[in-house]
């Protein structure tokens, strides 16, 4: 897989000037154990907004 930094083009307005997710963050986005934890967290965060909005 191409490393994320290889997508950056020096002094390019778009790729050079934004924050990018490194390989650790990208791995955690699909890590099953961590994502089960996040599933609970996301549901709690969303429920807070839903409760406040009703």
């Amino acid at each position, binding site marked *: 897989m191409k490393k994320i930094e290889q997508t950056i083009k020096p002094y390019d307005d778009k790729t050079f000037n934004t924050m990018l997710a490194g390989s650790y963050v990208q791995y955690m*986005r699909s890590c099953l154990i961590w994502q089960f934890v996040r599933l609970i967290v996301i549901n709690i965060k969303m429920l*807070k907004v839903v409760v406040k909005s*009703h």
Partner: protein
Amino acid sequence: MARLVVLGGGVSGHTAATFAREWLGKEHDVIVITPNSQWNWIPSNIWVGVGDMRKEDVVFDLAPVYSKAEIVYEQARALSIHPDGDENNPNPFVTVEYTNEERNGEKAEIEYDYLINATGPKLNFNATEGLGPDEGYTVSVCTEDHAVHASKELEKIIKKLKNGEKQKILVGTGHGTCTCQGAAFEYILNIESVLRRRGVRENAQIKWISNERFLGDFGVAGAHIKSRGYIIPSKIMTESLFVERGVDWIVGAHVNKIEAGSVHYELLDGTTGEEEFDFSMLLPPFCGVGLKAYSRTGEDITSRLFAPNGFLKVDANYTQKPFEEWDADDWPKTYQSPEYGNIFAVGIAFAPPHAISKPALSPSKTPISPAPPRTGMPSGIIGKAVAHSICDMINGKSDKPTHEASMAHMGSACIASTGSGFFSGTAMALTVYPIVPDYKRYPGTGRDLEYSFGEIGLAAHWVKHILHHLFLYKAKLKFGWTKIPE
């Protein structure tokens, strides 16, 4: 006995009608008038549009659901409102034209005591020459049938990519005043995901074009989230994702003409450009469905009830004023018509007082900024609040609306799919509170950062999938449906 008529059976109208039926005694009638025979869970259309879901997965027949709930269902298109009746009929009524096979084209008058306008928008493809799947050169995912068509067109592109041909894909908004950028955002990233999954990504050039001032505006002036000690704008999150996925972008664009294989646009700085494409999904702008209103004597009073864009005026502050003077209190609370106390509008059908994102004009005075979205969660909450108010009024508890649901005092929980797959899917979970930024209460960002959250990952995709099934379950009025929040 009272009769509540709901025009439209989308998210907002369906929510209002079903809760009203639940809360009103059987001596009262609830009637839904909608030209569609099926209910569509629109947020999942983007998955139909890339071939990951079938049309049957996102729709169901309305007739058996309404029959079970004892809601009178008229498959018809509303044409006009007569709030004072006419010379032959002293009662308020709407005129409709049937769209079902048995009575197609037949017109009728349906009386009401209370009326909810929940017609949703007209998809105004005519606003841009060459826009849309019917008479233009672009596809759409706004309806389930549009999404099926988009999927077939995308499949042709994938075949060409497999043959080694280079293809250009352009997704975004097809006019300077479009809304619902979130749907286009989901669609472009799902296309990118599908092309990777099918091993043809290398040959495809994917580009975003939208009327947003910045990426991640989404028609709600963007959002800020707290993450790892930083306060991060949605612009950074979106740009980051686009760069990661190799998606280029053009923002601040008013698409003014589309020809076979090319889009012409004007930018906020006044420059113009042309972008070629092999496949393009561009959203249309929305306007009202063209309902007319007449007085008892037959005088056209449409402009008294409706704003120039065709949406129904409600209890909002429609005074024209500059962005700096916009106020959270401009936004409607009860959604009651100021002209007639028994008429309400919910979902996209109500006229917003102004945009949410800061307006912008090009040097040639072309408006290029998103219209405010009123779909999804707020649409359902507004429908339920209006149903509650009307039920209280019918039951004699009050002569005024009893429930409020201002978008300036309501949050939104949004899941934007960025690719499907039980183990390989990802989505962006985003919550904001309130939807309409209140820069007086929350200086700077306009939002309460305690309730603003954002994250990209597989878990958010699972949530999106769960919500797909949960909201279809709820809309079918299955056991416990009233306990599921909007």
